[in-house]
């Protein structure tokens, strides 16, 4: 019997047969925390009387959620994290370096790795074929100390992508469509495994957008097999030697198979206040927006900024709409400057924020006012998500957000193509 990707990776890392439903103890390749969950992780680590990290080289701290810090308490949390990094000799990425998940993709994740992070969007690493999953502070604290953790081997859903994206339709529209179809709890405890002939044309940036949102269907991981695109990405980022082929076995057992024809998709939105409250843009357009936010671990990469810049070049944001843009990493920002995207965006009236989580989580840099509506390229639109329970968040692709910023209302990006 062939194995799913989840069974293959967990089997190798737990030195066992690892079939869906088994409980295994698996080696962890990378463990990380960010600045809003890291302080509790460190306290739990210290409460356990652990003296050292299992592998300082493979432990990473990211200062990205409050970056730069908007409050003295968060600045003090940063001090705690920096001090821990120094004492333990682990890696740390500073304010302005970028979002943890983007940096994990750029610098660390490899096919077949196990990655645990104290952030739910750790699933992003699945784009590179890593079994990457979010955990809480206690679990990550123990993983930091022991270099391993326990997993229930998940059952898998096979998501089969066919066709090609029509004009104006992107990976974000695909994953919103898929979450609408599966629902916010339809894949709870499961692995989403992506495949199909469309993968051959699907860039790493698109895969990252898709894997990033697997958790919004409840999934434990969102796994892509590795292929030429994976190898090229790893080579581009200086670790081509870490490439290894990784694909599900013939006859792997899937709990569900869900085919998606990309050719039939259209621009999609998640409406307030649930990610699975999905509608086509054509059914919602005309809703007035006060803010458009382009960025986050879901859609803050170079390709995303390129799409936004192309639509916004020579245009102006609507006077009633603030346009805020946060590149996902320092490297993304540098390349976007070099390619002229940032220039186009600033000329169109955008405010450029430092690389980091920015407005996504509602703690700074774009908190909404009462009754305000934001179109955002992030991955969550729960009530209160952007800092105000009286505000509303619509999730969309960078193209839809850019087009909407020009008109000041939710707009079909195809009208600008």
């Amino acid at each position: 019997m062939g194995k799913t990707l989840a069974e293959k990776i967990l089997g190798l890392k737990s030195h066992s047969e690892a079939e869906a439903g088994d409980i295994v103890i698996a080696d962890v390749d990378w463990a990380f925390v960010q600045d809003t969950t890291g302080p509790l992780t460190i306290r739990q680590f210290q409460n356990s009387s652990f003296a050292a990290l299992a592998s300082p080289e493979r432990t990473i701290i990211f200062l990205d959620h409050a970056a730069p810090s908007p409050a003295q308490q968060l600045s003090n949390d940063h001090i705690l994290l920096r001090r821990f990094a120094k004492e333990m000799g682990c890696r740390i990425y500073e304010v302005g370096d970028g979002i943890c998940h983007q940096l994990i993709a750029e610098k660390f994740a490899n096919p077949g790795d196990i990655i645990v992070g104290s952030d739910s969007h750790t699933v992003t690493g699945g784009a590179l074929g890593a079994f990457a999953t979010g955990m809480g502070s206690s679990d990550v604290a123990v993983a930091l100390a022991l270099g391993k953790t326990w997993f229930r081997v998940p059952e898998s859903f096979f998501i089969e992508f066919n066709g090609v994206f029509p004009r104006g339709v992107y990976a974000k529209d695909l994953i919103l469509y898929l979450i609408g179809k599966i629902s916010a709890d339809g894949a709870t405890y499961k692995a989403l495994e992506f495949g199909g002939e469309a993968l051959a044309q699907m860039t790493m940036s698109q895969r990252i957008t898709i894997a990033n949102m697997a958790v919004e269907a409840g999934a434990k991981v969102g796994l892509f097999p590795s292929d030429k695109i994976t190898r090229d990405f790893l080579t581009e980022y200086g670790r081509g030697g870490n490439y290894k082929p990784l694909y599900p076995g013939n006859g792997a057992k899937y709990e569900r198979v869900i085919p998606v024809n990309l050719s039939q998709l259209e621009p999609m939105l998640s409406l307030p206040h649930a990610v699975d409250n999905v509608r086509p843009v054509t059914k919602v357009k005309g809703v007035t927006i006060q803010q458009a936010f382009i960025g986050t671990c879901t859609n803050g990469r170079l390709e995303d900024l390129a799409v936004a810049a192309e639509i916004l070049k020579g245009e102006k944001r609507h006077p009633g709409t603030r346009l805020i843009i946060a590149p996902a990493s320092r490297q993304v920002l540098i390349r976007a400057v070099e390619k002229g995207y940032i220039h186009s965006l600033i000329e169109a009236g955008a405010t450029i924020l430092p690389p980091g989580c920015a407005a996504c989580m509602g703690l700074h840099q774009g908190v909404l006012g009462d009754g305000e509506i934001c179109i955002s390229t992030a991955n969550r639109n729960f009530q209160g998500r952007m800092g105000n329970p009286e505000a509303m968040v619509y999730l969309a692709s960078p193209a839809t957000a850019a087009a909407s910023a020009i008109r000041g209302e939710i707009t079909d990006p195809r009208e600008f193509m």
Partner: protein
Amino acid sequence: MIDLVLKGKAIKLGDNISTDDIIPGRFAHLRSNLPELAKHVLEDAAPEFVSKVRSGDFLVAGKNFGLGSSREHAPVVIKMSGVGAILAKSAARIFFRNAINQGLPVLLCDTDKISNGDELEIDLTGGIINNLTSGVKLGCSKIPPIMSAILKEDGLIPYIQKHKDFKL
């Protein structure tokens, strides 16, 4: 060791209570001051919760409780509020594991059979919920032995301090 028989009153909540509902991101600056953070538990989703909850009460929710962020502060502040256990039709994966890691039981059962204010007695060993108000007994789904062991030790950190490793 945690108490294996719990008794308290049901506080009902709806479906899809996210960790942003439980403790919103706008309070991230209070995360290193848990007593202050706990004052804001469920502030948007159930504004009266903090003033009404009594020690030993049960949070009784619908489906997909705790979806969203991995913030372990969510079960931490629920436990600090005095809640003895969470009952839900289903729970999001990370929240479920975090709650157990904090020694806060999460029991998955048909919560439609429980009304707001019902007196409940829960036997964690047998996984039986006895609704003393309605007289209905409910079973709940089993958790893996490793989670039961962690729960019995009142959370992952005490468990690891005792065993030094995971014991399957």
